[in-house]
């Protein structure tokens, strides 16, 4: 039987999923709008500088957090090492804006730190009369982001250090090099590609961050996109700024690809590493270093959230949270179902198609993942509003009443955006599970007279059902946590868990949504756990 119908379906859908990116590029090449010209002439250069500053500082802070801890865990033995190995991953489950809120609260003039200091030094001064460091600025935002993003670099650097093995280091020392010289001449050059890959990943996340900088009132390109659309209603200006961000992301990804390619030459050591046993003050410093990262990135924020939730428990009884939860689950479930079904379609098409082009729909549909979600939201709006306008005109010309914003003004836009954004997540999981199914099973099924569809139903799906579930869960959680796209695309008076929490953050009332924030953190623990396990397996 021909497998053309699979190919046609896969190609059509993957082209629909790539449409937003195509329209974004087309739109941005159009003539300049007055708003964009105005922004360009006035504040945009400042926003660009802020964005670059933010990304660079996040990278520096992340490297400072992640590299020493990765080295300690990979090469040294100290009390609690086995626990820190995965505890250090936990901050990844914290949304940066929640951490930002909590630290602002702590360090504020009216916060406990400054209150205690005033009490200690018995100074009785008004606001602004004594110096205290300011957190609501670019370095502050960078610190908050690095505190929850460093685990990406930690995981990849730790794996790289471990894969080097201790033999190279021991040989270097037997050849007369001191530990520090060995680190500089052997360990660092070998891990550089992996470290750059990890940093670029964090850089892309920092560039795309919206909530933290918006909350701190730091103007970056993401906040400019947001304001252009929600504030000034100019899709075209938003598209042009988005393209600037996309260029930044492309640059980052190019560096990532280049360094990833360089890693291939290095052998992987698979034996057991001899750990360097730390004692005395060295062991204590190692414990303090690792613990303070886990404490400030996870334990402290969670404890504070819990205390908020307990203190304000009575305020959460009006059923608002229940309604939001229901909406979120419904939406995320729908997006997860669609995404996973499409991932199965794409991977299956790749498998049964005889030509190399059969693999393209998977690749094409995964591409939008690199767009920051603020950019993606704008990109989704462009073809949608275009279609709606033409359809409305057509409908009116036919003598009916115009249906209005039946796509961009409804949850359709949100679900579509989620599918476009997280298709890569599902594709990755499903593709890997298909690869684990031996191709000889297909030949056996074919030789026993089964069609493609029967083979999918009787052989493949039963074998990959665990991964189907995993893919759905991962996409579900991502949808639940996704903020910028949801903020830009949600219909009037509609909230997801993330927008609900963020609304309270920006109203300086997170206390009242603490329970919802805890739910987001809990949901975020599952992908972190999976990532940690994968990191462990690759060693």
């Amino acid at each position, binding site marked *: 039987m021909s497998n053309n119908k699979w190919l046609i379906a896969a190609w059509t859908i993957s082209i629909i999923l790539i449409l937003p990116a195509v329209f974004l590029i087309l739109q941005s090449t159009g003539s300049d709008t007055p708003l964009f010209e105005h922004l360009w002439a006035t504040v945009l250069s400042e926003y660009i500088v802020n964005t670059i500053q933010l990304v660079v500082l996040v990278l520096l802070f992340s490297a400072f957090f992640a590299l020493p801890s990765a080295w300690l865990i990979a090469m040294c033995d100290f009390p609690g090492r086995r626990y820190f190995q995965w505890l250090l991953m936990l901050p990844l489950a914290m949304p940066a804006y929640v951490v930002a809120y909590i630290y602002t609260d702590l360090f504020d003039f009216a916060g406990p730190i400054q209150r205690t200091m005033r009490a200690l030094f018995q100074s009785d001064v008004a606001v602004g009369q004594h110096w205290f460091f300011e957190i609501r600025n670019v370095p502050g935002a960078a610190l908050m982001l690095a505190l929850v993003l460093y685990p990406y670099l930690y995981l990849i650097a730790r794996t790289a250090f471990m894969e080097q093995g201790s033999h190279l280091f*021991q040989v270097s020392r037997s050849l007369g090099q*001191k530990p520090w010289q060995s680190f500089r001449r052997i360990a660092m050059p070998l891990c550089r590609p992996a470290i750059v890959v990890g940093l670029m990943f964090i850089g892309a996340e920092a560039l795309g961050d919206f909530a933290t900088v918006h909350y701190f009132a730091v103007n970056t390109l993401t906040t400019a996109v947001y304001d252009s659309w929600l504030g000034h209603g100019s899709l075209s200006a938003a598209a042009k700024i988005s393209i600037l961000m996309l260029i930044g992301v492309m640059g980052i990804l190019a560096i990532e690809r280049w360094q990833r390619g360089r890693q291939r*030459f*290095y052998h992987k050591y698979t034996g057991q590493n*001899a750990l360097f046993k730390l004692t005395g003050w060295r062991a204590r410093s190692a414990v303090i270093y690792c613990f303070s990262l886990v404490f400030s990135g996870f334990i402290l924020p969670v404890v504070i959230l819990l205390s908020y939730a307990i203190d304000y428990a009575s305020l959460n009884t009006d059923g608002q949270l229940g309604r939001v939860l229901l909406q979120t689950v419904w939406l995320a479930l729908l997006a997860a179902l669609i995404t996973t079904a499409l991932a199965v379609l794409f991977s299956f098409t790749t498998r049964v198609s005889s030509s190399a082009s059969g693999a393209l729909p998977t690749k094409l549909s995964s591409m939008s993942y690199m767009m920051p979600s603020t950019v993606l939201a704008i990109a989704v709006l462009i073809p949608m509003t275009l279609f709606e306008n033409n359809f409305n005109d057509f409908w009116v010309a036919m003598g009916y009443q115009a249906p209005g914003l039946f796509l961009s003004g409804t949850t359709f836009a949100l679900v579509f955006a989620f599918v476009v954004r997280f298709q890569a997540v599902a594709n990755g999981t499903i593709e890997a599970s298909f690869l684990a199914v031996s191709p000889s099973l297909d030949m056996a099924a074919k030789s026993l007279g089964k069609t493609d569809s029967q083979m999918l139903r009787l052989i493949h799906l039963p074998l990959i059902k665990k991964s189907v579930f995993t893919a759905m869960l991962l996409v579900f959680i991502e949808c639940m946590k996704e903020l910028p796209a949801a903020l830009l695309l949600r219909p009037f008076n509609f909230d997801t868990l993330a927008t609900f929490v963020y609304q309270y953050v920006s109203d300086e009332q997170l206390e009242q949504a603490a329970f919802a924030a805890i739910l987001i953190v809990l949901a975020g623990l599952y992908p972190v756990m999976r990532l940690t396990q994968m990191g462990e397996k690759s060693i």
Partner: protein
Amino acid sequence: MKPDQITALKIEGISVSYQEKQVLDQLSLMIGQNEIVCLLGQSGSGKTTVLKAIAGLLPLDEGEISLNSRQLSSVGQCVKPEQRDIGIIFQDFALFPHLTVLDNVCFGIKASGEVAQEKGKALLAMVKMAAFETVYPSELSGGQQQRVAIARALATEPKVLLLDEPFSNVDHHLREQLMLDIRAALKQHNTPAVFVTHSKEEAFAFADTLAFMEEGQIVQQGVAESLYFQPSSASLADSMGEGNWLDVTVRGDMATECANLGIISATLPHNQELSKKMRQFVRPNQISIEPNPQGVGEIVEQVFNGESRSYFIRLGDRLLRVSTTSFEHWPIGTKVNIAVLPHQAILFDRS
């Protein structure tokens, strides 16, 4: 170590534990100037731990290690690995993947660029790798990587070289030549070496003396022949090569008797008390067979090994393993007479 040799490395009564488990138990070992010693033993007997202790990668619980009369390790004291003048070669060669072959060799040389390069090139020529100076390790075969690793280790002129299973990642047919070349390089540099293996063939070919390890201790040390012909323990006898365990009774200072086989003569007195029931270990090449229709044994299986041929002979209710030259070929089912050739008896208590 031969009696007239000067001691280079002295290991005296060392105990080492790793992750709460005692791995070495009061182990002692002397290595002479220019001597190549092989640590032989089953996996888990503590061979690699001895190397790590010598290299200063593990602390000692007891005993001490000294090199040319300089103390390296004792309880609570440990000279750093980089200050020990000890070279290490690992099973995976551990070449630095981001450096060329020549840069790998020059890595530890403390001299200015040009002098170091000259020295590196000379070493590469010695290990027959001069043509590969600018190549990266990933482009080399296992044997080639091993040659580079040897050159790199010798470049810093170590006082002793440690080799951990150095030939296990090298193709079988290259192994013998590589062993001869490396042995020649060590002898040329007058560098004593300790090497670890679980293969007796490698030990025989590469080492001057062998030390057999069991449960963290050295059971026997000596030249290959003494371990092969006079093993001090049953497990050493077994790991030195195939053999037959026979239940015997001592019949004299130079004779034992085995049911079905009769008297077995010894070439040296074994000093066992008369009539004692013992177990005797007889190598396959110490038994001869001859076809005879009235023979006590019957050939049940035969294996052609190239240089030799192995026969499995049914004798009563047991199988004997016998090795002959490969020219003789008797079919399965042939009845044979069996004679144990006079040899130095290997006897152990029956327990």
